[in-house]
């Protein structure tokens, strides 16, 4: 399969007001290998050095459990990954099943694929479905409409109705405020789409990842580059999970690199830690995604 090779540098830097004596961190900074994406290699470095154990979490994301037991005032996490990304096959919207069919299938079918997917229809810590979200989403879901068409329309209306405004929200802003203010960032828009889809009974999950930093000639630079990005995927029986990016109103293809997925941001936050000491802290994140040229993903 023909693909593009990317080099991703993801640097997270914490500066603490007071020395930290012990720090324990869960890191989710290793891109997944999925059908159209292959992690070629990764170098993960922590300064100061940490004892690391690696495991796969509930959703199959790679997690590094890092423990730092030297006193430090600055923590730097450098993850350098090379990832080959092949173009996603764009399904024909008309060939996807009507959305109501997906909903009823997920309620009754107990085959493992559908059962696993239907887990993503229930409330999660940051996405609590409700009638407000159902009402907002329903405008895009005409009766009998193919699901991909309907979801694309939902993404389009989020893109149109909402203003991308990094100053409007924080990680802690409740989703209800985002809906009211009609402002937010990629994470909020992903949560909003999830709330809408789940309120209608459609399984959908949160995807975190990266965007190509510099747009290829002739293309516009995507919103959310230079940092971690977020979009969603919804379940379509027969086709599996299909990614959609409400922030950029598009179907992700060669320029989106998948990092991790879960029910919402809380399942995939790149760095989560508990410290002894530290006081206040400042965090700086830098992401650079550079194309290294064409490559091939061997299949099978």
């Amino acid at each position, binding site marked *: 399969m023909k693909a593009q090779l990317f080099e991703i540098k993801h640097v997270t830097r*914490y500066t603490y007001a007071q020395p930290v*004596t*012990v720090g*324990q*961190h*869960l890191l989710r900074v290793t891109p997944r290998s999925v059908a159209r994406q292959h992690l070629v290699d990764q170098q993960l470095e922590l300064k100061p050095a940490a*004892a690391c*154990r690696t*495991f796969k*979490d*509930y*959703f199959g994301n790679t997690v590094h*459990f890092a*423990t730092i*037991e030297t006193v430090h005032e600055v923590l730097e996490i450098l993850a350098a990954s090379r990832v080959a990304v092949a173009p996603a096959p764009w399904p024909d919207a008309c060939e996807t099943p009507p959305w109501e069919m997906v909903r009823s299938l997920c309620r009754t079918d*107990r085959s*493992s694929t559908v*059962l696993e997917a*239907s*887990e993503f229809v*229930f*409330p999660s810590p940051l996405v*609590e479905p*409700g*009638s407000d979200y159902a009402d907002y989403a329903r405008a895009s879901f005409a009766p009998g409409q193919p699901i991909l068409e309907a979801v694309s329309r939902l993404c389009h209306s989020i893109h149109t109705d909402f203003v991308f405004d990094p100053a409007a929200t924080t990680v802690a802003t409740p989703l209800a405020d985002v809906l009211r203010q009609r402002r937010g960032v990629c994470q909020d828009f992903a949560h909003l789409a999830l709330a809408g889809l789940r309120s209608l009974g459609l399984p959908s999950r949160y995807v975190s990842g990266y965007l190509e930093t510099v747009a290829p000639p002739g293309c516009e630079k995507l919103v959310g580059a230079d940092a971690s990005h977020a979009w969603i995927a919804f379940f379509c029986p027969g086709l599996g999970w299909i990614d959609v990016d409400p922030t950029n109103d598009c179907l992700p293809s060669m320029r989106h690199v998948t990092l991790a997925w879960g029910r919402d941001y809380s*399942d995939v936050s790149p*760095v*989560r*830690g*508990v*410290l*002894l*000491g*530290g*006081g206040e*802290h400042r*965090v700086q994140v830098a992401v650079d995604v550079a194309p290294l040229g064409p490559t091939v993903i061997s299949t099978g």
Partner: protein
Amino acid sequence: MIDPAPRAEYELSVQSLSNPFQTGSGNPAWQWPEPAGTSCAGFDEIYSSGGDVRDHWIGLFHALSGLGVEEMSARAEDIRRLLDEHGVSCPVFAEGEWREQPWELDLMPFVLPAAEWAALGRGLEQRARLLNSILGDLHSSQRLVRDGLIPAPLVFANPAYLRACQAITVAGGNYLQLYAADLVRAADGVWRVLTDRTQVPTGIGFALENRSVLQRVLPEALRAVQPRSLDRSLRLWRDAVSRLAVRASDNPVIAVFTPGARNEAYFEHAYLARRLGFTLAEGGDLTVRHGRVCIKTLERLRPVDVLLRRTRDFMSDPLELRADSLLGVPGLVEAVRAGHVAVTNCLGSGLVEGPAFLPFLHSICRHLFREDLLLDSVPSWWCGTSREFREAERRRLDLGFRPAFAPGLPPDHPAHSGSDATLDGVPRDIDARSHEYVSQERVHGSKTVVWEGRNSGMKPVCLRAFVVFDGHDYHAVPGGLARVFAEGEPIPPLLPLAGRCQDVWVLNGGAPEFAEILSAPAPTPLIEHASSDLPSRAAENLFWLGRYTERLEQRLRIVRCGLGRVADESGSVASPRLSSFATLLIESKVFPVKAAGPGMVLQRELLRLLYGVGRNGGVRPLLENIHQAAFGVRDRLSSDTWRILNRLIQDARPRPGRLPLVHSLEVLNRLILDLAALSGMETENMTRGFGWRFLDVGRRIERASGLCHLLGAVLRCPPGLAGILDAVLEIADSTMTYRRRHFSDPQLQGVIELLARETSNPRSIAFQLHALAEHAAFFPDAANPVGAAQLRLRIAEVARRSVAPGTGEGVSTDDYRAFASIATERLQSLAVELAGISDLLTHVYHSHVVPRFS
């Protein structure tokens, strides 16, 4: 903890009862409640439908019928007193404040016949086995969901489903080492389960305590009825828990992991730690280093093999579970995942507690075990499927609604909002969130006999029964808690721990049971356990216990001295002795405001100090601090010590209707004697380990700084104030010593000499400093050897100081002003240095930096 000695008093009383001359009209017989007959709704535990006493109650009837009303009332009072002495209580948060709700044990036990228990026990054991298997399945292949036996939302929409704990190492292969069920007997006489308790089944410690109290209070009834002992079950459980240890070791380190003294079952946590010989640890005592869970002790980090956790699932690890839980141990889940520590009951075991599972247990049991479910649940319907929901709707009058996943939910979870956790009313959001509700038939409880002050009555009752895993199979514990409700009081779906209860007596069925003695850890003086492994938090609590008890003694002596003077000089409006005493207290900052005035003002201020509620440095806040510090180490305090502490608090209660002055002097004398008893326990009964040292260091620092302030105040007072030096000697308990030496009225230099420099006077500053220096030599290096060395150095330096200028220092003892100014300055600087040493000590040994999250 069964102390055989006090039983002797009842041996006597039993004999005296068989003496016909003793049962006169002064002790009339009490009446068993009348059979309610057909008018009684619900099942009657005592009388059969024919009005006869059921066979299994007859033994108890005979044993108790000889006791008259007076004797029964006295025994009921003994129960209250014993529970009080043992400090059995539940912290309850109500109306914005915490208070200790005393444990209420009824004089009447609850009797179950052998055959009935055998069937019930088999049902409980099967249910434990079943829930354990369900937990195993849901945390691995989830075949039960795939096969359609458990609807997917019960797992995936269940907040108790901890994805971080999916597929973690299960200690010993079993999720449940301890299981409890809340049982209720319906009118048809059948016991049914109201709620399963799988993550932190509480109550077994209280049940053990109940039994040991009744063993003292109703020895003749116990001998006659011979209920089955709980000790064997406790030993099975303890041994199985010990075998979970991840390292091969004869002496595994096992900690009872408690959320802390604010938890309603904290008494039980401390009790179990003591009874089973485990260490009591809060989240702050534990830390994960190099992937291992360790207890922070004064000297080192000691790896833990098994955590008998009494914290809820989601509160156990702020890193991977609920982030805002400060009660947990960051990294615990990872330590379990890596197989470095065994946690029991296993993390995630709260999943099947939700009542949503109740309707499905029948079919799961048949599917997994090819057996019928022996012990049924109270009829329940999960509202998540439309058919069940309609059934619930149709029968709404007989039913109540409960949150489907409620037990184990954080209290602020959305499932709690919009509807109540009780069975009353239809939740407003039932249509939108039907899968979050279960409808359940209302229960009323069977009626049993209870003791009602002067007589007996009938009250509704529910049971909490326990099942332990012995390493091979489950064993129902022959006993438990019977929770008594008031007539007409609705029975909540989650039985509260606090409230009135009875001990459950399971009959033996004829075969005599040999008492098994649980080999408890060696008899306890004040402090048990290897002192070298004293947890830092325990050391801190002991240090403050030492400081607060000493501070209390100083306050009491000041108040007693003052009130004594007021009593002596009553009538004299402006006694010079009283006004100079007031000046002394103002100078030593005991009185915050100018309280100089006639005797009545002084008296008022002193009584405020004694009884005032919010007064800083007053007796009451000090007692609260003492209680708190003692509570934090209650697993390390002997029952005698605990008894003294409880008496201290009771003795401090004002008795209304008494003359304030006379009564207060009585109170003060009692309290000072209580404190003397406490320090006697310390001196004579405590192992000389770190625990004792930290307690004594606290006392020495506090006494030395108290003397610095007192003597400083004397020096600041105008010279020659009437009776001040007498007062100081009295407060410092050195009047006799001074008189023996000087045969004259006290002089300033002599008083300073005796209270500051005299090393043989245990009430002098020099004595305290020498004691501190001796302790300092034994201080461990801990994790902070630099700090420890610095601390030792500072204590050694301060011990060399002399407060009063000596003869060699060129200050004439006749030059009062020169003498006073040098002594004042030295006292001040010493007080500052002592405060610094106390801070440094806290920093080196006790500092618990609260974890933060990024």
